[in-house]
């Protein structure tokens, strides 16, 4: 098999082709869709989902699911927002503008660790635990903020600048941060021992402990990463939109992220998932979101599209698996 053919047979190629076809189709109707300006709009839609999707991909690879990411995003953004609002001091000096970034990441990691502890200590299914913490963490957001929004004036302008100013070629910082997270996830998932253990755990949870994988530790780590990345997405939400609202911030985030991850080819049966596929899945959803207003489709249809995307991706995933089984049988015969 030639290298070219191998590339085309990969799952990622299919998504890339879908992105190109979609953009060409929209561009044929509305030529302004194929401009650089539009590319900037698409890219600006993606960073938060991309960061969340990296964590969720690892969770799904480990054969779990994390429904609480939107609420973790909300809590961690709110904690930082409250600190900005009340001019918190760090060891006697005012909190620097970037102070919210590590704080949000740590808060998110702790919340994710909470999920992981419940799941591993009591052997509970992740779906029910995170359904519970989805509500629990959302309630926490209201409690710590006293149900009040953190308005524009409290968010440091340098932080808001991350979404506007750019180091190079007019591309804002947060897009670089998102792609940086994707690169780091790639390195972690493909080139570290723990990263490979996540895949081993997801492909066969029974065999994993027999091969010396510490299942509980790996599971805890995966949920902590998912939380930490939600935290990072939280502070970038504050940067991108300039406010933190106890009820809106992060709500529905989980559905966008899960849609992006499953369209990106991560298998819900665990053990399969790539960073490149997830990035492409995020970009595809970004293209769709950007095309809607141009095509005159109301924004209210977005949730329905995410739902349809999840289901279509599941059906594709199944047919790919069926083909794999069929080709294995042929090879054996």
């Amino acid at each position, binding site marked *: 098999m030639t290298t070219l053919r191998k590339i085309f047979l990969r799952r990622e190629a299919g998504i890339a082709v879908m992105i190109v076809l979609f953009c060409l189709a929209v561009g044929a109707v509305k030529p302004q869709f194929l401009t650089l300006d539009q590319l900037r709009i698409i890219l600006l839609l993606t960073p938060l989902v991309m960061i969340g999707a990296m964590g969720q991909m690892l969770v799904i690879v480990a054969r779990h*699911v994390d*429904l609480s990411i939107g609420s973790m995003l909300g809590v961690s953004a709110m904690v930082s927002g409250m600190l900005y609002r009340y001019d918190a001091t760090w060891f006697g000096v005012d909190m620097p503008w970037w102070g919210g970034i590590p704080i949000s990441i740590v808060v998110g990691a702790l919340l994710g660790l909470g999920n992981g502890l*419940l799941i591993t200590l*009591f*052997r*509970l*299914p992740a*779906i*029910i*635990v995170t*359904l*519970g*913490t*989805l*509500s*629990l*963490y*959302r*309630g*926490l*957001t*209201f*409690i710590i903020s006293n*149900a009040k929004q953190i308005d524009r004036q409290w968010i440091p302008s340098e932080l808001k600048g991350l979404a506007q100013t750019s180091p190079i070629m007019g591309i804002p910082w947060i897009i670089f941060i998102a792609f940086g997270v994707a690169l780091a996830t790639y390195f972690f998932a493909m080139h570290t021992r723990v990263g490979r253990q996540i895949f081993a755990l997801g492909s066969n949870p029974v065999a994993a402990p027999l091969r010396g994988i510490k299942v509980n530790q790996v599971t805890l780590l995966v949920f902590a990463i998912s939380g930490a990345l939600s935290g990072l997405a939280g502070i970038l939400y504050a940067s991108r939109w300039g406010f933190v609202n*106890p009820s809106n911030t992060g709500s529905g985030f989980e*559905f966008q992220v*899960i*849609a992006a991850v*499953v369209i990106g080819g991560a298998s*819900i*049966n665990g053990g399969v998932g790539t960073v490149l596929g997830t990035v492409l899945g995020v970009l595809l959803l970004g293209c769709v979101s950007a095309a809607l207003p141009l095509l005159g489709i*109301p924004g*209210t*249809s*977005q*949730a*329905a*599209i*995410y*739902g*349809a995307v*999840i*289901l279509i991706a*599941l*059906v594709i995933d*199944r047919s790919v698996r069926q083909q794999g089984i069929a080709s294995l049988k042929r090879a054996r015969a």
Partner: protein
Amino acid sequence: MSTTKTAPAQADSSPVRPRWQTLLIRPETMTFMLLVVGVFGGSVLSPFFLDLSYILRSFTLYSELAIVALVLTMVIIAGEIDLSPAANMALSACIFAWAQASGVPIPLAIVIGLLSGLAMGALNAFLVIGLQLPSIIVTIGTLTLFRGLAQVLAGDKSIRVPEWFIGVDKIMLAGIPLPVVLFIVLAIGLGIVLGGTIFGRNIYQIGTNEVAARHAGIRSARIKSSLFLLVGLVASVAGIMTASRLGSVRYDIAAGGELQMVLMAMLGGTYIFGGRGTILGTFLAAWLLVIVSTGMIVANVLPAVQLVVLGGLLIVAIIATNLIYSRTQR
């Protein structure tokens, strides 16, 4: 000689517990005791809790979710899960309201609403049983899809229903609001089906070990499909009842209802991994949840704290149920 024959069997199994003990550590008993404690605590909090009609009126607010939770219990016992019924309620209510607003007579609009609910159940059944996809992710997808379609249909507006159609919760049968009567009747009916028929026993067997059940000749695909269809149908009934209670329909009715439905099933001792649970448990848990929620409202607890309590309760309930089951078996 006869003693040696029976000895191995006895050595295998732990000593038989007295009947009162097995009854006492059933999760349903725990739910019942919590319910008693809840009513007692509530009555200390406010004398309203000793007024049955007040509790019945509070229950109507949760009766739609409770009705669906009864069927959801059977789905969970069969080893699957359905997170989409709350979104199904919203979509079928929107379809119903939209149909009658565009001139379809109400009875026909109700039929359309019910059929759409059934179709949503059929979609879940097709994806989970036909294509053998995991119900967890499938119903997350259909949850998003249904809620999204409801939003497409209704937009941000609310659709009004005619004056005479409003107020299903005000109709009283022997002093009990109609939705509560429906809940009780359905609970009795499903309790008999689940506990006393072959169909019901088959559900338990599928949930305990699906492969073994299939080898034993149980048509697991057919039974599970019928359960998903039933959830869809009952969810649409609940959706239309919600429309009648509220007097208007928005896309976000029963928002977050999936949490409360799963919570009712879990509080009632349904085992999340399938094979155990009873309708009685969910029946008691629905009352317990109403007492807790109403208690929090009476005590002026912030809505945010209520979110925390509900989420925490779900996790505590599932931990407790798992502990009870691991104690009593294996």
